[in-house]
């Protein structure tokens, strides 16, 4: 039966080209804008390599040192000491990784230059400092070599992991370069491994180059404020998302225990408790509003984006239904039930909506690609490289699923009232119109 509906829909579409084109364009417009929001949300929160464990990850990106009499608070991230005392010793999570972000490294060191000993060429690079478990928590694809292990990390060994792009710039090739040495701001490092390039859209892991943060004293030497805060961020991998509460509790216990050893200051997480990637993505949209406000605001925006086109399409449908009243009247006179008629019209309409959805999805890909820098990067980000997007980030089951669901919702929203109006007409009147 549905096959007949689709056949009929196809015929009707061909007969009313102008109307169909306008209807498809109207649908596509709505889908395109809502899909831009959906795709951005997907890229920011879904499990995408190398951040494959986002759904199980707790982000502890800030820490506060507060004077016990309340006269002074310093908001920053964690010091190496705090990391070891309160995070590395946690029992409930599967793993704990730590890193100093690209932006933070830039703030501490200024621009960084890489070179090969003896060569005059210098290249700027986005560097991140990490620990050894970082390579377990995140899943990089290694082209060759191995990253630094725990012993190397703890001893501050000068070993680095480079992206393919950086290696090509620096050495002119990407093969057989592990073990070779190069200079970071005149300090010698050995290449440990080469990984595939990382898109700046991967906000936690993006860098051109990774080194153990213990290899540069500037990251671990934080004597002020009893060495509580520093530039380090902790990424806690839970066994499952439902463990988050338990981990937060354990951090709280560790924190209290740690504070008993401190003299004038205390370590608190009041400025930002550990968040999941989804909570963090929402927080990043607007620092000055609560996450409930942001969710409400975006739900309203999406509603308006669907409502305005829905009214638009309802208007088109209503005019169209007027034309088809005689046809519907005749079908009714021959015994077609309400459900059959409504079903048929909705299916026909869904056919047009899906075509519009497809166009809209393509347009939304275009918008995301062109505006990727503003859509996917925080406006405070220091990263200046262009955001690259892989096909997998755009074309995947979740994105298609969102698009389909939006089509169905839009279809129901736009056709329900006109169809209801038509189906109420009585047979005599309907045929009389002819």
């Amino acid at each position, binding site marked *: 039966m549905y096959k007949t509906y689709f056949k009929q829909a196809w015929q009707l579409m061909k007969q009313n080209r102008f109307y169909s084109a*306008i209807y498809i364009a109207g649908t596509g417009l709505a889908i395109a804008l809502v899909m831009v929001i959906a795709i951005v949300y997907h890229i920011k929160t879904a499990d995408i390599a190398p951040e494959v464990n986002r759904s199980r990850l707790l982000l502890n990106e800030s820490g506060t040192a507060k004077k016990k009499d309340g006269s002074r608070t310093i908001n920053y991230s964690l010091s190496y000491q705090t990391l070891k005392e309160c995070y590395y010793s946690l029992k409930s999570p599967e793993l704990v990784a730590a890193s100093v972000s690209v932006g933070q490294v830039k703030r501490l060191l200024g621009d960084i230059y890489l070179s090969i000993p003896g060569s005059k060429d210098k290249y700027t690079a986005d560097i991140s400092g990490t620990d050894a478990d970082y390579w377990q928590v995140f899943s990089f694809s290694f082209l060759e070599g191995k990253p630094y292990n725990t012993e190397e990390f703890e001893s501050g060994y000068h070993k680095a992991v480079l992206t393919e792009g950086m290696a090509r710039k620096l050495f002119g090739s990407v093969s057989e370069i592990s073990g070779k040495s190069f200079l970071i701001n005149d300090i010698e490092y050995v290449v440990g491994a080469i990984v595939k390039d990382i898109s700046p859209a991967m906000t936690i892991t993006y860098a051109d180059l990774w080194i153990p943060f213990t290899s540069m004293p500037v990251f671990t030497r934080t004597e002020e404020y009893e060495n509580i805060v520093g530039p380090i961020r902790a990424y806690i991998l839970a066994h499952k998302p439902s463990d988050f509460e338990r981990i937060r509790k354990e951090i709280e216990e560790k924190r209290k225990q740690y504070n008993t050893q401190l003299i004038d200051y205390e370590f608190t997480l009041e400025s930002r408790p550990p968040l999941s990637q989804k909570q963090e993505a929402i927080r990043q949209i607007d620092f000055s509003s609560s996450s409930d406000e942001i969710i409400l605001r975006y739900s309203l925006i999406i509603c308006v984006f669907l409502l305005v086109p829905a009214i*638009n399409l309802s208007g088109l449908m209503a005019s169209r239904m007027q034309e088809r009243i005689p046809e519907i009247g005749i079908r009714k006179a021959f015994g077609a039930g309400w459900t059959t008629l409504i079903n048929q019209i909705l299916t026909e309409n869904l056919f047009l909506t899906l075509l519009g959805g497809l166009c809209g999805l393509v347009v939304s890909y275009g918008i995301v690609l062109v505006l990727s820098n503003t859509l996917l990067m925080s406006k405070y980000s220091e990263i200046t490289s262009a955001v690259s997007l892989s096909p997998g980030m755009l074309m995947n089951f979740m994105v298609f699923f969102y698009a389909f669901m939006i089509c169905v919702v839009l279809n129901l929203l736009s056709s329900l009232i006109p169809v209801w109006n038509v189906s109420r007409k009585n047979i005599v009147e309907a045929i009389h119109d002819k």
Partner: protein
Amino acid sequence: MIQHVFKLIKTQWKNNIWIILELFIVSALMWYIVDYFSVMLITSRIPLGFEIENTYAVKIAHYQSDNPNYIDYGEDSEEPALNFLRIVDRIRNHSEIMDVSIGQWHYPYCSSNMTAGYRHDSLRVNARILYVTPSYFEMFSVHPAAGGEPSLLGEALEHGVIISSGMEEALFPGSHAAGQTILTNDSTSSYRVSAVSVPLKNHRFSRRDNYIYFPFQEHTLMGMNEENIKDNTSITFRTRSGMNEKDFASSFKAEMNTQLSIGNFYITGIIPISELRTLTLKADGVYESVQNRTGFTVFFLLNVFLGVIGTFWLRIKKRREEIGLCIAVGSSRHQVMRQMMTESLGLLLIALVPAIIIWGNLILVETLPVHTLGLTWQRFALNSLFTILPLSLVIILATWYPAWRSASIQPAEALHYE
């Protein structure tokens, strides 16, 4: 004609209700969205108070203690500060450079800033603090409020602090600040105001802000290590006019790179201040807001376009006979088209009635942000203009094709169906 058009709209009420509903929602929302543009337009006409042509900021870095080039001067050595001042001197001595200024986060569009509260009697105000050298005012063309050359402010800086005219109004309403004393909020320090500058803004689309200028004392650097000097001091300079900023920045850096590496300091970049302006506007969300709001506006206008063109297209099919009759009894095609256009604009007019009520409510419940600009008549007028004008244009554009089609109906053919 108008009466006739409204009669037409009324008889087709059932078909028109959808398009009127859409126009109503869109005009209500658009008024709110374009408000940002109105505020931008109005604020951008208020002078900035400074100029940044041919000015650059110097980005400085220093070797860390683990670097092979690191020189250990020992604690409390004056050598790091002297090295820093040597860099400033070498920049000053470059032939293309007119002035050099050092200060603390003092240049326009600097990403860091300090603010503190000041008071006079019971009046209190927050102001942005800038530590500057006298050359600052000439470099960025900051004039005295009373008129005269920027150099007057440079001279005044030697006798006290300089405040911006907004701060004078806030602390000394109706009188003059020059020669008076102001206190920090906790009354621990007092400062003599020696002059008042023109009103200043942070960037083109922000409101006027309060500024207070303190003299930058080079001797405060003595004894600081490289890290503290780098974190607390910035160097800016101005070149002769007529140079391409990007080219000059890179050629200057290439030329001076070795000369400006002194002690543990080295230069990592020369940034035209116009580039910092872009970053400030981005961080302040201006680009993002413009992009989002333009996107929303275009989205709504496209919807209206499709809605109107679709509705009128289906309508002329139904009204063939009527239009054919009009033409047969002597209406010109031009008149037929005009009638359809008026009809569609009439729909907008009807939709605007409830929309205006919504606009009024948006004002009454204080939904419009007033941080940058208060609720002025100018703002409402611009909002209304930015809503009604594009909507009317889009509606005319959308009606044009169906109207043209209907005007080209052959009366004989159309009436044949009757």
